[in-house]
């Protein structure tokens, strides 16, 4: 469903996207889909014995796919998830359930569409944050056309916004 810029307020929280619990089979499926054979995602003796990890790790590459999906779906068919930034700060282990969350921090009007600035993250079932980040999503104005596709970055008055 189309989401318009006017429908969004600073402070709004996005509906959480839940992924998992993520089993070793989920991790193997992702490793196979990307032909990435890093053992810390499927070889428990290697992960715990050689690399001294507490268990098999959920791939950071998989977590960022979830972040991208979360923002893409929220942007809706006429919006565009333009910028996504995140830091891998903590591990998530096989068996954990991940919750993708985001909150609107700031709204900014460009000429042809609006920009929604968000803070976001990935927390596990115990509420521990692992992947804090931020994003900028372009949304159409209520009476305006869809955000251009392919996306063309707006010319903004503030240099701060351009670098956000």
């Amino acid at each position, binding site marked *: 469903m189309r989401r318009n810029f006017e429908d969004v307020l600073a402070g709004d929280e996005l509906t959480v996207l839940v992924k998992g619990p993520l089993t070793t089979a989920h991790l193997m499926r992702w490793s196979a*889909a990307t*032909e990435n054979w890093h*053992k810390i995602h499927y070889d428990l003796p290697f992960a715990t014995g*050689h690399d001294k990890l507490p268990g098999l790790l959920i791939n*950071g590459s998989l977590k*960022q796919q979830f972040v*991208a999906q979360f923002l893409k779906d929220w942007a809706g068919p006429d919006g565009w998830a333009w*910028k*996504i930034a995140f830091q891998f700060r903590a591990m998530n282990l096989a068996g954990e359930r991940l919750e993708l969350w985001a909150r609107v921090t700031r709204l900014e009007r460009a000429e042809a569409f609006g920009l929604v600035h968000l803070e976001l993250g990935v927390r596990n079932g115990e509420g521990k944050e692992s992947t804090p980040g931020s994003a900028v999503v372009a949304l159409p104005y209520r009476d305006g056309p869809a955000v251009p596709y392919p996306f063309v970055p707006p010319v903004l008055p503030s240099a701060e916004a351009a670098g956000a």
Partner: protein
Amino acid sequence: MALLTDDVRSYIGRTSEPWFACDAIEAGAVRRYAQAIMDPDPAYAGEGRDRFGGPVAPPLYPAFMFRLPFGSPDYLTENAENPDFDGLATSVSSGLPELPLPGLALLNGGAEIELFRYARHGERVLQKSRYADITERQSKAGPMLLVIVETTYETEAGEVLLKVRKTLIRR
């Protein structure tokens, strides 16, 4: 400045040759990828509104489609009896020359991504990478290097799909 030697610093600004992924965007590969990330978006099958000009791949797909082409050495067999082999083939990561940092662990610190459009099924994708910056920081575990790699993913026609500015931690 224990780690950031003049030699390492000389890599800042170095670029890779533009480099095509060995396979074009394939429907089956997109399906497996979309199922693995559990994103049932009908756009990946070309269903629904045709805003994108046909079936597309998930947003970050171009950054994960660079694989070993036919004729590559089989590093799994080569390392079958190497107890320290972690399963990674770092040479397929960016096409950039390896930094002279033997023995230092590599951690993925995060990324800043800018998205412009999706790759369509059948399109070929190339990447160009650059060492944008290398700085040294002190951490609780000792000195570490923050290596910033910028990569642009484009179509054969030169249309930019996405740009990724990745932070690699070496320590």
